[in-house]
């Protein structure tokens, strides 16, 4: 199985794939933005500020998703001692951090006209801020330690501590009274978002996922080049 991770093979993929992903991303993003900003209807209550949701919600989903992936990869890396997992995790994290910040900022911009405040210390918003801090710690941990073993250890500890926060963020709106509204999209019960608004939301999610993939491929490619330059033939 680990033969698949041969750097030369992966390198040939990661160095060519970005331009195709970029192409796809531009297409999906333009469709998504047209849908979200022009074609989709305004909300019966919020009016046009509902359009912020098409950026806010996908960004928050991706931020949570990437943190979970980074944690899983770090744990796998720790258990199997296979360094490639850490490198994949490291390359994924930056776009998750960026989307986390995007979710916080767009949420704040939406909150002012709708709730009447830029910021509230409710469970959902606070736990999302905590997630951003964990992302920050994770990214910094890769920069401050010289010793690779030390980096693997510290970054794994940070993700394990941070992952507890992920389900709290997800379910905070159900467990406690929060200013933030509960989830509109449910897998098992009927969603409370109209299909004309759900469609652009899903397209925008796909666009953001492609963006994360693009950044990941570029970051990971850089990691592989670093390994190549060191003259190592395996990870």
């Amino acid at each position, binding site marked *: 199985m680990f033969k698949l991770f041969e750097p030369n093979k992966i390198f040939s993929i990661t160095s060519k794939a970005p331009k195709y992903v970029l192409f796809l991303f531009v297409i999906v993003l333009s469709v998504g933005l047209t849908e979200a900003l022009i074609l989709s209807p305004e909300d019966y*209550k919020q009016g046009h500020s509902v359009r912020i949701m098409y950026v806010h919600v996908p960004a928050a989903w991706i931020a949570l998703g990437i943190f979970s992936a980074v944690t899983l990869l770090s744990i796998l890396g720790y258990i199997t001692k296979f360094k490639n997992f850490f490198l994949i995790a490291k390359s994924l994290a930056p776009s998750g951090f960026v989307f986390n910040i995007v979710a916080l900022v767009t949420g704040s911009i939406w909150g002012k006209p709708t*709730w009447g405040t830029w910021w509230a210390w409710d469970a959902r918003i606070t736990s999302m801020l905590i997630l951003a801090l964990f992302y920050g710690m994770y990214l910094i941990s890769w920069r401050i330690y010289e010793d690779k073993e030390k980096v693997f250890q510290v970054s794994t500890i940070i993700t394990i501590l941070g992952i507890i926060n992920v389900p709290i963020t997800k379910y905070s709106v159900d467990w406690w009274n929060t200013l933030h509204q509960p989830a509109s999209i449910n897998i098992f019960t009927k969603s409370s978002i109209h299909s004309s608004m759900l469609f652009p939301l899903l397209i925008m999610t796909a666009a953001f996922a492609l963006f994360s993939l693009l950044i990941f491929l570029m970051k990971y490619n850089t990691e592989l080049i670093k390994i190549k330059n060191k003259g190592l033939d395996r990870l």
Partner: protein
Amino acid sequence: MYGRKVKLRFFYIILILATLTLSVFLILKSLEENVVFFKSPSDIQVISELNKNKIRIGGMVKKDSISIIDKKLNFIITDFKNEINVVYSGVVPNLFTEGKGVVAEGYLKDKNFFSATKILAKHDENYMPPEVKAALEEK
């Protein structure tokens, strides 16, 4: 096919995760009072003594309860079991209307009377175009 060390590390991680989850759960459980963003009118009814601290009360704005008396906005917050009268002077957010969610920040005068210093509108999870809303109301 996996070495003994690998298995050991696997269970080590599982144990750490279980311990952390349990401790965080217990911490949050005991801090529930402070984690909630607002209290409901029913929560207010059961408190034993009034304290002078700033609190938040949330619920629905009762239908036909908004009135302006003496240049002050009066309305009733309800959770359909209990209600509380709120008095406020200042700006309200656009989404503040009858029959919709609201969070009021301020001071309790007594168990049925609340003096608000800030009003926030609470948005619900329903998203739909105006035509759909109109069609739903016709039904």
